[in-house]
């Protein structure tokens, strides 16, 4: 009994000490008080050096909280009780948040540097005239191959994956919309198709791919590809950039016949409280030199035209991550579908997963 009491007292003392020291640390880094900005971001999706630079320039301290899926972020903001000043949803989620009245419109008169952005990524259907959002990074869906076993140039199109040469060699990202979308492209359909017959055909097409599919996995795909577990994978460009950095035998292709174009965007949730800090940050992040630094750190493609010009030639001329205009013209942005249509996609996709 005495020992138990001692244990409890000891644990309480440790907790108290940790609590006290973390408070001291926070105070010394200046995160208390009103000169703060609460950023709700994906994990490891901003260069930490930029945050320090921002604080030095403007005096605002940035508190970063992270989420791991658009849906998780949506649920948290929707349920209230949070004080996020800025969030970074993907394009279809911007539409959804807008529809749920979770966003504040941007005050364009306070924004400088909007004309630094490439018009290709502005005024998109998910947010006409960029009333609510500023693009942050963009990317594609494509094929990653390992040149140890796959000769460059042999897998440039989606249909190449269906070749019987690649039995049990392909890893797919576990995402209904993307994998169904890939099948839809090979059948010359829109990636936003909602016709049940069209989706049924796409499922049948995927079922034909099943013998070639080694596994349907999520984030782990990066680790697997880096370790040569499979020679082929279908994944997003952002994930591909990380794989390529870890394994020099890997290459990324965006099929020229079409693929998905995704854009992550800075938005102001309804819960925002620090107006001045928000616009200071948005303007800071629109500055070409800062955007370029961020793009070099993250490895994703930047929608900021002037920032892209500042990137090293090897990066900005890299066709893997900045595809040529013909390919860009064939890319499609996902529309926010109604829950019933999302269900339709997921049902067909689940049946495909059951099939193999």
């Amino acid at each position, binding site marked *: 009994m005495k020992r138990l009491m001692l244990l409890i007292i000891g644990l309480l003392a440790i907790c108290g000490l940790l609590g006290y020291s973390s408070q001291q640390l926070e105070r010394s880094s200046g995160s208390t008080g009103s000169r703060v900005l609460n950023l709700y971001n994906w994990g490891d999706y901003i260069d930490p050096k930029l945050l320090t630079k921002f604080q030095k320039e403007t005096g605002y301290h940035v508190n970063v909280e992270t989420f791991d899926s658009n849906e998780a972020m949506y649920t948290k903001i929707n349920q209230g009780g949070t004080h996020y000043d800025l969030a970074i949803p993907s394009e279809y989620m911007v539409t959804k948040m807008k529809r749920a009245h979770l966003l504040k419109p941007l005050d364009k008169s306070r924004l400088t540097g909007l004309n630094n952005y490439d018009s290709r990524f502005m005024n998109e259907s998910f947010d006409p005239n960029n009333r609510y959002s500023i693009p942050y990074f963009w990317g594609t869906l494509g094929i990653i191959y390992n040149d140890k076993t796959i000769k460059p140039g042999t897998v440039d199109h989606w249909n190449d994956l269906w070749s019987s040469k690649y039995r049990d060699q392909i890893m797919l990202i576990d995402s209904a919309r993307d994998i169904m979308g890939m099948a839809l492209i090979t059948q010359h359909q829109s990636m936003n198709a909602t016709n049940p017959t069209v989706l049924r055909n796409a499922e049948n097409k995927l079922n034909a791919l099943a013998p070639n599919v080694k*596994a349907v*996995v999520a984030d782990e795909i990066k680790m697997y590809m880096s370790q040569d577990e499979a020679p082929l994978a279908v994944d997003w460009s952002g994930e591909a950039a990380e794989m390529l950095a870890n394994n020099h035998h890997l290459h990324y292709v965006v099929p020229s016949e079409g693929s998905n174009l995704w854009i992550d965007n800075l938005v102001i949730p309804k819960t925002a409280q620090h107006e001045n800090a928000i616009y200071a940050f948005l303007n800071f992040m629109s500055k070409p030199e800062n955007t370029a630094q961020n793009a070099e750190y993250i490895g994703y493609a930047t929608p900021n035209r002037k920032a892209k010009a500042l990137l090293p030639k090897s990066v900005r001329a890299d066709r893997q991550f900045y595809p040529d205009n013909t390919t860009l013209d064939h890319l499609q942005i996902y529309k926010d579908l109604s829950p019933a249509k*999302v269900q339709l996609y997921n049902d067909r996709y689940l049946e495909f997963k059951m099939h193999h």
Partner: protein
Amino acid sequence: MMTLTKRKTWFYFIPYGLWLGLFVIAPLALIFYQSFFNLDHHFTFSNYANYFQSLTYLKMTLNSVWYALLITVFTGLISYPTAYFLHGLKHRQFWLLLVILPTWINILLKAYAFIGIFSQAGIANQFLSFIGIGPQQILFTNASFVFVATYIQIPFMILPIYNALDDLSPAFINASQDLGASGWQTFQRVIFPLTLPGVKAGVQAVFIPSLSLFMLTRLIGGNKVITLGTAIEEHFLTTMNWGMGSTIGVVLIVAMVIVMLLTGDQKPKGGTPR
């Protein structure tokens, strides 16, 4: 006097009652309630109709039950002899602790460790190459999924069996031996029937969670094994169709109740001599 003790009993019931109400009954009621709503939040029975008319879901249910059964059988085959062996050891508390130790490690970490072991360049394949068989595809096979799931469940089976063996009075074994039973007969007629409650408790502890495994099906099985857990995850996180997800949840709960009834203690029948 009577009322005082009664009041005291009631007082002690409060924490238990609160816990039961808030964390057992309320969630179950919510799941049941949710399962009657469709995507538009209208009351409907269609979720259940969909479930029992869909070949996909029925196949998935069959898959879940089949793999849970396999996992339970393998776990049992390994755990009973292990528990029996451990029970006969000198420092058995220490050895038992070693068996329990892995359960303190997060399941996700263990899954990732197995990815390292089973991958193309992993230890398992290095060994296979060393003995001349050459590297094989181990990850993303049904066998590796069952293997890892079994590994994770083993402690939960060993513990109740071990406890049952511990409760078994050595007098029974001595008596059996004195009466001329062979070692095997003693085990078959005395030890095993008397430790059966431990086995049943172990089956419950293993079969029920195995029905809804979903993380391992993706990490180790590469989504080649699809169980009901996968479908529930998808309904709650991607399609946001909580109604359908809850319906599958209700089906799982019913399946669990059936398992509990089948493995629960039967009441001794009237004429059975004790």
